[in-house]
């Protein structure tokens, strides 16, 4: 899966990055780069056993939810 993500990052980087660089749209290029790095970061953090955004949301809200709702 990590390989697929890395290849996707590379492909999207080329697909979106080159036209943006040609048009000198640096803000857009930076934004694209940031999102691609974020996706790599999430995948890598999963591989390293770190928490994903959903895990963090669960840690925050699940105890409150379990207080009010029926247990599964």
């Amino acid at each position, binding site marked *: *899966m990590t390989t*697929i*993500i890395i290849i*996707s*990052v590379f492909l*999207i980087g080329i*697909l*979106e990055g080159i*036209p*943006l660089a040609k048009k000198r*749209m640096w*803000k*857009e*290029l930076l*934004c*694209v780069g940031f*999102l*691609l790095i*974020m*996706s790599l970061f*999430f*995948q890598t953090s*999963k591989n390293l056993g770190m928490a*994903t*955004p*959903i*895990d963090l*949301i*669960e840690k*925050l*809200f*699940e105890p*409150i*939810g*379990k207080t*009010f*709702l*029926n247990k*599964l």
Partner: protein
Amino acid sequence: MREKEVISTNQFIWMLFCIITSFTGLHVIRLVIFQARRDAWLSVILAWVLDVLLAVVYAYMGIRFPGQNMIQYSMTILGKRLGKIIGISFPIFFLLVSSILQRGLSIILNTVFFPKTPVALILISSYLVVSYAVLKGIESIGRVCEILGPFFLFSCIVLFLFFIPDVKIDRLKPQLEAGLYPALTGTPLILSFIGICIIMGMYIPICNHPENGFTAKFTAVSLGTFVILSLVISTIGIFSYPQAKNMINVSLELTRFVHLGDFFERVEAIWLMIIIGAAITASASMIWAFSVGISQIVGLNTYKPLVLPAILVSFVIGITSFKNSLDLVNFSLYSYPLMAILVETGLEMFLFFAALILKKKG
């Protein structure tokens, strides 16, 4: 140059309808029955009332800040810095919803239809279609929903007509057996899912008649609630509460029940085709809203370059977050409703009161 996209009121209605029914139909029916028991129908009705009230607020804000969506009027009301911090919650929320929706869909497809196909492959194929839809623009998504939405509604009505002979109303009794608590706690649960139509705040500025925002949302939510209500009543009336609360996918089980003699059976494949279509358009709308929102926060000229990276982020969140369907159910029941209520209701009410107190207008 920022894209000038325009949708009609009709497209507005059907996009919201597809979003509400696909998201709720895939995830929530079983959860609301599990929580509210035989009074799940009451939770649905109460959630409809609250959602209509919420629609009033969103529609009012859409008129008070003409041509601006929630992200833009966050910045107008609270200033650039604080407005961006508050405003970015909306696109991030839409991205998470897209991940949850697609992951839920892939789990159902993998469990029921394609047990030997990797979930990742199902997700990739869904997202390829979603990316194509978003790159074509919200107008294309609106046009697809204009065709798919009525078809979806019609199929729900036909299915409900098939279920009616087998529904035993006695299975919905006794009402309020455990008091009001189950129905009252079921209401925010289902409201958090149908409340995803706060995306109306993104549609109002691009609608050719923004003053129709409330009417469009009211129509979409009413139609969606009718579908959900008919599914809830059918499920409990046919399967009874003890069985219904443990079903993995209620709408699928209901469609398996449909038959006309020996020659009209196994319609679940048709049902699933329709719901996949609705789920993909819903996901496409979420990714579009995320891309537009982020481009406005950062101050970009166009949102199109962000679409593919957004799809990739959504895919990664979806694939890394839930190991199996139980994880997803756990998240949908205990974590998602609170997060959603905070964003859908909490943030918007905060912006509403801030606009009134600070006397800000568009």
